[in-house]
């Protein structure tokens, strides 16, 4: 094997996903595909509505009633999607705030590891000296490896807390998945209503043009009332759809961040356990004393396949360490390298978290702006809906 280092996979690279850019209302439509069956059904309903509308006299109360119905077009779908926007905004904000305790645990792990780092212990091959002068007792090396015994319970406690933290992240992601599934459904419904409003727009425009020569009064009424309403509702629908799409992407960002963080935590645990195992081997080779790290071994048995892979790597390295034991410095270098791996992992996690936080902040700011805007629209739409409570919406999204 070319690489003499323990637990060296490819270097850990954690990619913070890019911030979610603002979605323009005009670009929001068409992201959720509609089934052809749905579009035909909706088109049919639009056709019926338009036929019924032009059958009425432009001055009759029935005509007014039909137009009134249009003010509620998509009101329920908008309200539903808007109800979710609170939650999807909440999630990235919370993800930024709490830092899941994983950060604290990683810091604690780092402190523990630094305590054990052989490169911070000076020359371990020198003999212990009383008052730094008189040679006394065994060599420093033995004392150094003894310090693992006392550190192991701390380390295993931290590793187990990290495992809890990982579970929390996984749970978070499961919740995000669920939220995204619901958001997708709501977006599909909005998309249907957008389709309806666009078709209505087109059909009303055509009808008005057809009526111009024969019944200019009705053509005018259609343009000024029905078409006007439809266009306003189109704008509301697109605004809400844009916010929902942006929220959908933001949730994905949080999820991806979590996945990267999970990788980081996994790697930090693996490299730590690998370093401790290396220490066991090195201790055996250098002091001829068996270092017993029960708690770590026990932990190892319960940790999943990732660590097993490290175990394999270790086994193949053990033989070499023993071969190299003749010259004491090489096993020590291996151990130092193992510690270096932990530091690298933790640094990667730290820099990832900084970048991820940036992307998250940008996303949240953009999203809050959009949500704020859509709220204004919704408030207006609500006012209209309240005024026209007696007219139910003419179209409802198909489920």
């Amino acid at each position, binding site marked *: 094997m070319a690489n003499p280092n323990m637990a060296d996979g490819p270097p850990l690279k954690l990619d913070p996903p890019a911030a979610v850019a603002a979605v323009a209302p005009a670009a929001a439509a068409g992201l959720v595909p509609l089934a052809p069956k749905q579009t035909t059904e909706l088109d049919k309903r639009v056709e019926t509505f338009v036929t019924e509308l032009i059958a009425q006299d432009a001055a009759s109360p029935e005509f007014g009633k039909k137009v009134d119905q249009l003010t509620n077009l998509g009101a329920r779908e908008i309200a539903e999607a808007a109800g979710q926007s609170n939650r999807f905004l909440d999630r990235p904000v919370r993800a930024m705030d709490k830092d899941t305790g994983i950060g604290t645990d990683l810091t604690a792990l780092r402190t523990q590891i630094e305590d054990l780092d052989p490169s911070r212990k000076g020359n371990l091959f020198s003999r212990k000296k009383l008052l730094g002068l008189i040679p006394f007792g065994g060599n420093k090396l033995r004392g150094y490896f003894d310090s693992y015994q006392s550190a192991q319970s701390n380390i295993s406690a931290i590793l187990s807390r990290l495992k809890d933290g990982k*579970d929390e992240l*996984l*749970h978070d*992601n*499961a*919740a995000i*998945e*669920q939220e995204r599934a*619901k958001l997708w459904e709501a977006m599909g419904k909005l998309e249907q209503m957008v389709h309806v409003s666009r078709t209505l727009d087109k059909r009303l425009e055509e009808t008005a043009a057809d009526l111009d020569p024969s019944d200019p009064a009705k053509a005018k009424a259609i343009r000024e009332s029905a078409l006007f309403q439809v266009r306003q509702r189109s704008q509301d629908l697109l605004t809400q759809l844009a916010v929902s799409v942006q929220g959908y992407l933001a949730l994905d960002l949080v999820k991806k961040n979590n996945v990267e963080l999970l990788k980081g935590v996994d790697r930090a645990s693996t490299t730590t356990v690998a370093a401790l195992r290396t220490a066991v081997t090195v201790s055996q080779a250098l002091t001829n004393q068996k270092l017993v790290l029960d708690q770590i071994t026990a932990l190892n048995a319960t940790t*999943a*396949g990732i660590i097993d892979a490290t175990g394999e790597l270790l086994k193949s390295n053990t033989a070499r360490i023993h071969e190299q034991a003749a010259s004491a410095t090489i096993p020590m270098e291996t151990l130092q390298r193992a510690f270096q791996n932990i530091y690298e992992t933790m640094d990667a996690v730290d820099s990832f978290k900084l970048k991820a936080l940036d992307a998250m902040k940008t996303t949240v700011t953009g999203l809050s702006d959009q949500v704020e805007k859509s709220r204004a629209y919704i408030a207006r739409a609500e006012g209209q809906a309240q005024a026209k409570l007696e007219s139910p919406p003419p179209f409802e999204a198909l489920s």
Partner: protein
Amino acid sequence: MEKLPESLVALARLAASPNARRAQVRRAERIWADLRRRMIRSGGFAAALILALLLWGLIIGPIGTTTLVLTTLLGAIIMFALLFWPASKAPARLKAADPRTLPAHAELWLDTQRKALPAPAKTQLDTISDQLATLQAQLDAAPPPAETARDLDRLLKNHLPELVERYTRVPTTQRSAEIETSLTDGLNIVQKELSRTSESLSETDRDGVLIQRRFLESRYSKS
């Protein structure tokens, strides 16, 4: 209306919707609970009377036969009265109901209105009272968000009773088909609104199950 043969009645009861059956069960439970309360009250009075007579005999002095007979008679009358009086009172006005027990209250109130409503409305009433029972259980488990509570309040204290009362005020002879369909249409809307409320109340719980499944999948089914 022609009277149905006994077997058909039994068949109809069998064919009754699960909603109707559950509504019947709840009605029977309410009656039984009322009866049990009355029996306990009346039995308690009898026990107290016997105890009082015994103590009188032991401490103060012997009771004459006349007193015994008179007391027994009077006691029996009071026991009887306690069984049947006061009559089960119709639920107090809905408007005054405690928001926490409003659905149960509304169910009781609807039960009293049942007789006055036409047949199709009665099946709707079964569904509605079933929904109300579910809602009551949901409210018992967790207080609803303020807005949901307000909406429910409005629906059950104002809108639903108004619909039913407005219908019952129309003289029987003038209850045209249009009036009846208006009533059933209205009840339909109430029904939809109730199921929407109930669903929104348990949304988090339903999602929780789905989320937990997703979590378990990602946690334990390693590829």
